[in-house]
């Protein structure tokens, strides 16, 4: 990238070459890493108590929820699709957790029930997308609507129950994970980031996702089990969304039907800001994790500045466009011929 033997390297050109969004820096997610750090510095300077321990841990907790919700989205986007049912899976898992706990189900039974729900949603999403050739955008839109309706029918609009004690502790600001001074949800998320990243890079069956996302026909011709990949990815997405929903129960203590709503577009934004391409086959989960950190920092800074809900939306909208205009532009048509 930078040839130090070049006599023309001056400090200014060095910095400009580093900052320029060429393919190498984008590959290493340098813009994202820099943004996470710069945002932190900005927040620490501008806002009282931004850089306190409890503030940082709060941000990490919120980033964990977003990160888990966006994990599934990352996988689906790598496949070349998009999953609009995530917020509704979050809602269903959230309500199921609270409701069943309220009805005194054993915890394993609740988990199994939620898992079954996630698998069913994922299978329907995957099959409809692959076998019926309906675009995943529409499929997940429809399954999302069905889930939303099913939730309303089941709870009559009034979810009951409460989160179990251990779950509230799991996401609490004050908890620790053994010797690590972080709440279990954060430790869990970091664990997921590491595991998912490594699996996506090295696990043969995970690489099939990239193959299908890159060229479905070539994947079929190289004996990749495409239908299985589609189903597995959507099942994984539903499972990750369920985990987010379960964790959120600990946060809100009761079930809440619309708890997943903010994650509909936030999950897409997080994936995209992180640098995973909507075209498929390019990216990884560690990028989404960076995106979740960026997103959370931006939100915290806006709250710290006292921006109203409305103003926050406006700023977020402008920022997303600005960030992507810098780092995520497509190729002009001439280059694709």
């Amino acid at each position, binding site marked *: 990238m930078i040839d130090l033997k070049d006599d023309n390297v001056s400090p200014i050109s060095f910095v400009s070459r580093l900052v320029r969004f060429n393919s190498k820096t984008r590959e290493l997610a340098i813009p994202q890493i820099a943004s996470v750090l710069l945002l932190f510095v900005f927040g620490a300077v501008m806002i009282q108590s931004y850089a306190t321990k409890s503030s940082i841990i709060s941000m990490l907790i919120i980033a964990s929820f977003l990160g888990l919700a966006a994990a599934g989205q990352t996988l689906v986007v790598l496949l070349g699709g998009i999953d609009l049912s995530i917020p509704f899976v979050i809602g269903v898992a959230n309500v199921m957790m609270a409701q069943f706990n309220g009805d005194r189900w054993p915890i394993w039974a609740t988990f199994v029930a939620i898992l079954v729900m996630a698998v069913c949603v994922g299978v329907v999403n995957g099959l409809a997308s692959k076998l019926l050739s309906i675009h995943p955008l529409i499929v997940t839109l*429809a399954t999302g609507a*069905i889930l939303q309706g099913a939730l309303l029918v089941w709870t009559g609009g009034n979810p009951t129950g409460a989160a179990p004690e251990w779950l509230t502790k799991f996401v609490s600001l004050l908890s620790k994970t053994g010797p690590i001074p972080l709440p279990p949800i954060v430790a869990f998320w970091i664990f997921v980031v590491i595991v998912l990243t490594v699996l996506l890079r090295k696990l043969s069956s995970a690489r099939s996702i990239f193959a299908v996302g890159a060229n479905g026909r070539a994947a079929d011709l190289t004996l990749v089990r495409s239908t299985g990949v589609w189903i597995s990815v959507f099942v994984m997405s539903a499972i990750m969304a369920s985990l987010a929903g379960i964790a959120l129960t600990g946060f809100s203590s009761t079930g809440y039907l619309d708890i997943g709503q903010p994650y509909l577009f936030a999950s897409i934004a997080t994936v995209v800001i992180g640098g995973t391409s909507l075209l498929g086959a390019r990216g990884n989960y560690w990028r989404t994790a960076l995106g979740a950190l960026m997103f959370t920092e931006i939100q915290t800074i806006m709250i710290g500045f006292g921006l109203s809900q409305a103003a926050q939306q406006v700023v977020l909208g402008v920022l997303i466009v600005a960030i992507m205009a810098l780092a995520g532009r497509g190729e002009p*048509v001439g280059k694709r011929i």
Partner: protein
Amino acid sequence: MTDATFEIRGPGLRSIGKATFARPWMFSALLFVVLLVCNLLVLPGFLAASNFAATLAVGTPWVLAAMAATPSILSGGGGIDISIGPLIGFVNVFIIGVLVANGLGNPAIVIPVVIILGVAVGTVNGILVAYVRLQPIVATLGMYLLLVGLALVVLPQPGGTAPAWMVGLAGSFGPVPGALVLIVPAVGVWIAIYRSPFHRALLGTGSDDRAAFTAGVNTQLVRVCAYALGGFFAAMAGIALTALVQSGDPTLGSSFTLVAISAAVLGGTSVAGGVGGITGSIIAALDIYLIQELLSATHVPSFWIQVVYGAILLISLGINSVIRTLGRKTQ
């Protein structure tokens, strides 16, 4: 394509398949007939003249919203406009919270201003997609958030009253249903476009922008115009919505987006671009409206509407897809 070869049974299915393949909106039209019959069976007075204008007015915002979602999808390249809903909502609060609030409520001001607003928003979307080359879902997501936020700034709480002349739009002006006053010009604009060379430039760009580009089409301009056109229809939808609810509400808009896109796709517009049109979107929007009417007329609890709507969407698209695959195989 799978390895399996379909066994095509009987000439009936084959000709339906061929017909569906030839006209993308055929399936939604068939569905329309079925739903209309069901509605009439359950509610004989459904299409009664006395009620017709009001019945139509309830569906109008959805029809116009579906029209608004269509051009951007047609323009291809991952084209989609998720800011349609918030734009409709923003137009609503803009009329109430800005125009009416400042005594600018007369139609000679409201209508042109709102239309310019819609076209301007659409144009910005188009520029982000075509010139900045952002993924459409990203560009319109930014606009979505911007408009949702701005709507809350303009009108933090639901309230206000729509100007008097708008009542007619949700009712009738003499014998003419007010809804038609909005729908007919919108459709007229589309017909003018359909007859113009822009239409084939649009579909060409949507099918393969490289083919259009090398043939001499200004694909960037075409895409900007597509999003601007969507903005225009969204502005009309905003007017229809305001006429219907007779007040302003900053939270109304968002829900339009997903239904509008569903209607466009159900109506035969392909998510990949280049195939489809407004006809299908209008029919499919009416389909969705009829489904809702049918459910409430049969006293299905409102909670079930979402479930049924989602299921019908999935099943219809599945059937549509199967039929079209059969149709293609007989070519």
